[in-house]
């Protein structure tokens, strides 16, 4: 009976610790991200965010491996078995992907977002079409995105023309293929 209770308690810790550690690692990564961004904005944002999350996860794995050696009682607070650690990794990585996608929309000033804010700033009297279109030019909406592709090594400039690099070709092919599967047009 006592053995059953002990087993049940240790398994209890095993399963609930997964979400607890997943949330803790994610929160720490987000705090580090904000602190770094406020101190020094990296050149490659997506790469930097990914590095922060993966580094925090790896640091957790290292601590989980080393701490119980020096403090055996602390093992109680860590998951049991490799599956638990893989589960935490999956939680953190899934959040990282979701966050990076959201971040790219925050960073790039989505035109829909700008349209909403532009119209909202006009107040109750609204905004006419010409005024709205005058705010949204190619210099504001298009050129920065082309520069993003150059910065991310997806394209390069050759004699005044932009051409894709292998990374850009690969990315384009993913979306073209998926568009065909879905049966939709180019979009934009």
């Amino acid at each position, binding site marked *: 009976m006592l053995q059953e209770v002990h087993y049940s308690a240790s398994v*209890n810790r095993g*399963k*609930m610790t*997964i*979400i607890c550690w*997943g949330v803790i690692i994610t929160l720490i990564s987000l705090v580090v991200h*904000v602190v770094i961004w*406020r101190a020094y*904005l990296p050149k490659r944002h997506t790469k930097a965010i990914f590095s922060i999350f993966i580094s925090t996860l790896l640091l957790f794995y290292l601590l989980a491996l080393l701490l119980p050696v020096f403090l055996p009682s602390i093992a109680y607070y860590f998951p049991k078995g490799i599956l638990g650690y893989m*589960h935490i990794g*999956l*939680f953190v990585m*899934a959040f990282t*992907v*979701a966050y990076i*996608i*959201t971040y790219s*929309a*925050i960073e790039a*000033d*989505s035109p*829909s977002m700008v*349209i*909403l*804010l*532009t*119209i909202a*700033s*006009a107040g*109750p009297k*609204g*905004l*006419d*079409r010409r005024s*709205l*279109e005058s705010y949204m*030019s*190619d210099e*504001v*909406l*298009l050129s920065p*995105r082309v520069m993003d592709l150059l910065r991310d090594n997806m394209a390069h400039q*050759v004699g005044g*023309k*932009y*051409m*894709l690099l292998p990374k*850009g*070709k690969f*990315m*384009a092919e993913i*979306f*073209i293929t*998926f*568009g065909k599967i*879905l*049966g*939709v047009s*180019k*979009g934009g």
Partner: protein
Amino acid sequence: MQIISPLLGLAINILSQLLIFRLTGGKRLLRSIYFGFVIGLVFVPVADKHFFFLIEGNEYDRMGLLVTNICIYAFLGYGYFHFINLGQTGRRIRILIELHQSANGLSMNDISEKYNAQDMVKRRLGRLIQNKQVIYENERYYIKKSLMFYITQALVLVKNMLGLRNKMQISNSKSSTSDQWR
């Protein structure tokens, strides 16, 4: 086994979404995404309860596992939604596709001819009006304070918190020159 259910849930989400979209004649993309997500979301607890009964532990353990797997599935499902969204509305993706389809590359003017700010605004305004987030009356646009509007405001706050400059900040002054843009 315990980590498979959110991944399987995502696979079911994707397959359901593709099937629903095709069956509705390619007209209900957003609806197909929502339904696909819900179908996957239902699958995850069913899989955890029925297919992975071999997992040791009691109800407390299973609850912890379920919550974790639902969270993982939600993040992955959200990622899939945005993957489709990027393909449909992403400027960088559209530019990548235009460059991919051009054997000799494109100049900025060429890109602008194929895909320019006016096209972007027209498409997006059309979607915003169709989704009733913007109202067009008497040749003027008005905002309807919808969920999308509040999400936009929240994103601006996050951007400020991260110290990212708003590239297209609108000032209250009526200046029409580009110096109003930060």
